[in-house]
């Protein structure tokens, strides 16, 4: 696939939240405030890109040659968990302000299915190294974009009079549904 169309697709038409449903928990949980949403988005993007590169190398240079591809799931989740820990330690050591901003989101990222999902998709789709980079960065941008847009819409909804049964999650899901419709319409142009 053409790299540019892969990039655009991973941001818009193949958006990981709205078409693959990855990372729904932070999407629903942290995105009721605009600022939190942006912080979460940036933290996830950082971890996704870094772990994509590392798991890709592990898969093709360690797991495949040693004929142990079936260990993929376990090895990937361990890599992501330790990576998140290392990133947390480094940020804490060198940038107190950044740690204050992103710190609380980092532990949550380990169990964010978007990270494990993207690293597995990189392998399952048989991407080359460059394609993998483009796809991971594109998906991260798509994640941040959607989670940010969604948070601004939700802040607006909170000021409106929604029927009691629909308050909170139900109206959020219906909003997400409309966003998914809009994003999927980019396919036809």
């Amino acid at each position, binding site marked *: 696939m053409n790299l540019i169309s892969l990039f655009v697709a991973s941001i818009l038409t193949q958006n990981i939240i709205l078409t693959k449903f990855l990372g729904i928990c932070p999407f629903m949980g942290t995105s009721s405030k605009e600022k939190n949403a942006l912080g979460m988005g940036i933290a996830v993007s950082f971890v996704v890109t870094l772990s994509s590169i590392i798991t890709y190398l592990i898969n093709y240079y360690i797991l495949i040659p040693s004929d142990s591809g079936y260990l993929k799931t376990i090895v990937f*989740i361990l890599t992501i968990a330790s990576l998140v820990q290392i990133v947390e330690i480094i940020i804490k050591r060198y940038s107190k302000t950044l740690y204050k901003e992103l710190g609380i989101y980092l532990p949550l990222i380990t169990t964010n299915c978007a990270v494990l999902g993207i690293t597995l998709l990189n392998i399952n789709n048989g991407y080359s190294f460059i394609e993998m980079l483009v796809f991971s960065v594109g998906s991260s941008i798509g994640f941040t974009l959607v989670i940010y847009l969604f948070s601004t819409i939700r802040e607006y909804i909170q000021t409106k009079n929604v029927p009691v049964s629909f308050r909170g999650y139900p109206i959020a899901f219906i909003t997400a549904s409309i966003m998914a419709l809009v994003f999927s319409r980019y396919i036809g142009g």
Partner: protein
Amino acid sequence: MKRILNGIIKENPTFVLLLGLCPALAVTTKFETAYMMGICVLVIVTLSNLIISIIKNLVSDTVRIPTYILIIGSLVTVIEILLERYVPKLYSALGIYLPLIVVNCIVLGRALSVASKESVKNSFLDGIGIGLGFSLALMLISFIREVLGTGMISLIDSISGIVGFKLVLRVLPNTSLFPNSIFVSPAGAFLTLGFLIALFNYLKSRKVGEEK
């Protein structure tokens, strides 16, 4: 019995706790894949609850979460290998959502909140209850989506029909409004789940009102 019902109704993972939503939205385009996913999660959450409640006193607090993730990861890998070998169609239908059970908040959530505290028997029953609650929720969502989206319902189709027996029923006649393919698209998944949670909220608030 009370334990099991608790997982199905009062603490339904999908509609009440809102955990493990990725698979609930992704594999529910077809009734058949939905209940197959339900069974996989039922097996994994029951076994992980059982194992973790047995070893809970051997694991120190600092390494608790990594240990649990490893146990769950191993269980998922075993299921993956078995499915790939014996039911390859199901394996490819579930795709990445099968390995993603590792990071499914239901399994880890139950491990931390129930299995690491309660007795072996209670944890085991809780696993069965939560697994059943999850399966039923998935079946309900996929039933609505498949019927409204295609007009058909696939009780036994290509994946589970190992014996070559198929059971796909046409439930809804073709009209100008239905079947509507929006329900099998991602947007329909969000819409269906949104309305179902609203319905659950409504039923809950009515029950609370009656008790007063």
